[in-house]
């Protein structure tokens, strides 16, 4: 067992983990932003995310025969998913959470779970009417191929990636680029605009923000819109990466992204990104523990395979809750008076 064989393998496992981690990170942002303004875990966010995946599927399906550029199709899919998921999230808040604004915190939490279940079946019904259950993405040609295969226009970059042993598909690279762009726009929106300042003000102290002339309901709606739009983006990316989604696909990534938000410190935007990336990598590493076991000759490890991946997220969740309940980048509770 020499380092020369192990290293490229580990690098690829980590790279794959980061790709997955970006999807989790974008989903986790939806949880953490809503938590930031309302201290509510929006369990319906996993369905807001799946709705984005379904919208993405529909766009690619309708445009399948259309000769337009693949990237244009992707852009349309992303925009449509952002719009639908964003508006869905705003509607959920308006109808289900706002009337319970002053209720004990457990009440909206249970409501969120209820909304989540309702949306799952509404989605299943909508696709079921058309005789579909599992929705398989029809991606534009080339998206699923090796990144920069022979004869494509970016051979040099593809060769560079391959020379350092990175085995990524074009869609993985697209996923990373879209994620980074989303993060950059979000960072700008939250930290550099007056909308962002107003949202942060509402998150820190809703009463005082109101006395400064900020309509907190509008800012809460804006937060749900942004969080939902991010959910839509992550849905399309998830659908592209895994190829097939159905109405119930939100649960797993939803719960892992929620764990990521807690890991990073719920309410913290950089924390959600860090937590998502960390969980993506951890999950991928667990998935190949058996291979490591084989390489290292440790027989006991060989039975730990990809089916243990989900456990990894929850082990992390339990450890975080025991040892650092505020998360990696979370602040301890500010005293409120």
């Amino acid at each position, binding site marked *: 067992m020499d380092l020369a064989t192990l290293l490229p393998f580990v690098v690829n496992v980590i790279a794959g983990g980061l790709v997955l981690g970006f999807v989790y990170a974008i989903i986790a942002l939806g949880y953490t932003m809503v938590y930031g303004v309302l201290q509510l875990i929006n369990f319906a966010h996993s369905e807001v995310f799946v709705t984005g995946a379904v919208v993405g599927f529909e766009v690619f399906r309708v445009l399948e025969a259309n000769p337009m550029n693949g990237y244009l199709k992707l852009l349309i899919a992303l925009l449509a998913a952002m719009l639908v998921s964003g508006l869905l999230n705003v509607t959920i808040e308006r109808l289900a959470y706002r009337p319970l604004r002053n209720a004990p915190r457990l009440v909206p939490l249970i409501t969120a779970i209820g909304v989540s279940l309702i949306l799952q079946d509404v989605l299943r019904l909508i696709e079921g009417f058309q005789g579909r259950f599992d929705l398989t993405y029809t991606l534009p040609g080339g998206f699923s191929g090796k990144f920069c295969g022979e004869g494509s226009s970016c051979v040099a970059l593809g060769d560079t990636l391959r020379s350092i042993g990175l085995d990524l598909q074009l869609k993985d690279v697209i996923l990373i680029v879209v994620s980074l762009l989303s993060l950059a726009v979000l960072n700008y929106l939250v930290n550099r*605009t*007056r909308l962002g*300042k*107003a949202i942060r003000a509402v998150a*820190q102290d809703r009463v*005082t923000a*109101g006395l*400064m*002339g*900020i309509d907190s309901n509008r800012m809460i709606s804006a937060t749900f819109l942004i969080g939902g739009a991010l959910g839509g983006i992550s849905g399309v990316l998830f659908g592209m990466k895994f190829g097939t989604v159905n109405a119930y696909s939100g649960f797993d990534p939803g719960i892992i992204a929620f764990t990521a938000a807690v890991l990073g410190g719920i309410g913290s935007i950089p924390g959600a990104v860090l937590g998502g990336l960390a969980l993506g990598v951890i999950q991928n590493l667990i998935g190949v523990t058996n291979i490591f076991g084989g390489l290292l000759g440790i027989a006991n490890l060989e039975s730990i395979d990809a089916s243990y991946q989900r456990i990894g997220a929850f082990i992390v969740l339990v450890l975080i809750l025991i040892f650092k309940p505020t998360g990696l980048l979370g602040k301890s509770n500010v005293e409120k008076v």
Partner: protein
Amino acid sequence: MTAPLILDVQHLTKTFGGLTAVNDVTFGVPQGGIISVIGPNGAGKTTFFNLITGIYSPDRGSVRLAGRELIGLRPDQVAAAGIARTFQNIRLFSSMTAEENIMVGRHSRLKASFLDAVLHTRGFHASEREARETARIMLDFVGLGKWRGELATNLPYGDQRKLEIARALATTPKLILLDEPAAGMNPRETEDLKALIRSIRDDLGVTVVLIEHDMRLVMTLSENITVLDYGTKISEGLPHQVRNDPAVMEAYLGRGAAAGDYGKEAR
């Protein structure tokens, strides 16, 4: 009092369960005045401010700002109508910088929509510039220019109080409500504060109402004083009139003590 009333409160009443926190209080603030509301702890002073600013809605009564009824408006609408306030326990946005805190106060006055921010329109740039400029002016006005980029939570206590005042002023109010601005300040800081409050009225033309326990500050600064006890207005008048009102001494010191000297500091 010849100046017209900028704030006209009539028969304001608020009960919490069986407790009447504010009981039939009528209260007028002349345009350009500096008015104090005093009273023992638990007299209902802060509740009174919360009613005016729309945080609580009263059971009865009316609050008019320059003739416009405020009851029924949300706090952000009251702020838009022209009332700003500070808090007894400081409520800054602690993880924002001093400048950002003031910009939040300023933004409610500026017209730039969500789309403007996303699309980066010229209006958006202008409003950002304006907000930043206001923040600079306000920080200098309260003497905190050097703290511009510092997180609010890192400022010294007395300066946090001043920053809260600057943030309130950034909403360009007609009237500012200061809830115990001198609490926790040393005599020197209190003197600075007194000058600042005068300057708010004289230089910015903003009418001031303050709740305060520091009697030396209240007596030297106020043009008129209203005294609350158990939610009821028990006295009102010029500082020397209130100072010598037996009902006030009784409220602070208890029955029978009214004959004694009413000290500078009454807590």
